[in-house]
């Protein structure tokens, strides 16, 4: 019995052999595009969201750190914390949805990479708190946190770029490594402004870079 469904997918060769070579190639292209759209979509909106969240968090921190304290410290802390937690939740949901139902080497690699951030920042917090307890001068504390955090984030982005052969991610890592010493040079509290603006520009650049690269490649071919 020849069974077909509305898409015309017959389970018998008689029906299947009507597929010409060009139709087969068109079907391959179509399904590959669908897979890219679902599994490897560039999270442009996510990077733009992080650009805004990042700028808001560090702008709040800067306003709270100024001598005239335009924003109370507790308010900057609560709002900044809420923004970061919200951003992390949105990112996690997007990531889980993309990888839903897929298991294997890449999900193990992804989980190991995710843990690198947690472990790295735990170690960094341990080192910085020890330095603070050991009598780190007050005016160096804020640059210590901004500089060391940006170095760690930069290195982790470089690693992701290398692991997933993701050039825009590698560029973002390199950019963070430039922002790190710049923030220390700026001193406190301007370091917060440098990290805020530098980070926001980095995320916005990361959002648009893949499209720019694609246009460059397709422009070069036409």
């Amino acid at each position, binding site marked *: 019995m020849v069974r077909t469904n509305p*898409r*015309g997918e017959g389970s018998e060769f008689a029906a*299947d052999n009507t597929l010409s070579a060009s139709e087969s190639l068109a079907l391959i292209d179509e399904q590959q595009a669908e*897979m890219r759209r679902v599994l490897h979509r560039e999270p442009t909106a996510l990077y733009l969201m992080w650009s805004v969240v990042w700028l808001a968090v560090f702008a709040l921190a800067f306003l709270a750190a100024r001598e005239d304290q335009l924003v109370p410290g507790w308010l900057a802390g609560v709002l900044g914390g809420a923004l970061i937690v919200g951003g992390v939740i949105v990112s996690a949901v997007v990531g889980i949805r993309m990888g839903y139902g*897929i298991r*294997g080497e890449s999900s193990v690699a992804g989980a190991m990479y995710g843990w690198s951030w947690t472990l790295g920042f735990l170690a960094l917090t341990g080192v910085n708190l020890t330095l603070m307890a050991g009598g780190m001068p007050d005016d160096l504390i804020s640059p210590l946190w901004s500089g060391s955090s940006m170095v760690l984030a930069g290195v982790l982005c470089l690693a992701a770029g290398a692991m997933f052969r993701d050039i825009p991610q590698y560029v973002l890592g390199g950019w963070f490594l430039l922002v790190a010493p710049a923030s220390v040079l700026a001193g406190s509290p301007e370091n917060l402004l440098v990290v805020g603006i530098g980070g926001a520009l980095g995320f916005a650049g990361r959002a648009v870079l893949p499209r720019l690269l694609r246009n460059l490649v397709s422009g070069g071919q036409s």
Partner: protein
Amino acid sequence: MSTDGLPELDPVIHAQARLRVTVALAALSNGDRIAFSRLQELVGMTAGNLSTHLRKLEDAKYVEITKTHQRRTPVTYVALTRRGRLAFEEYTSTLRELLPGGGAESGR
């Protein structure tokens, strides 16, 4: 368009539904497997239809089907085997040979 030479194409893959499934599985990274329900969503087929075609691909040793449990719910995972990936690569290169003009711009 001439379809001469098409019988030389691998008959296991050269069927709309199985080609769709093979492309979807080939898009996964090496060493990854996908849940039956997610695959069904991605290729837009009924469960029965997908099972039928997966069985044919499995008979040819192009896919590997693993049944496991997640929180007591049975889950079936599907992965393209090495042999299946090679067969798909061969299939696409044969297709391009059949279309000397149009094939060159596809599959990049």
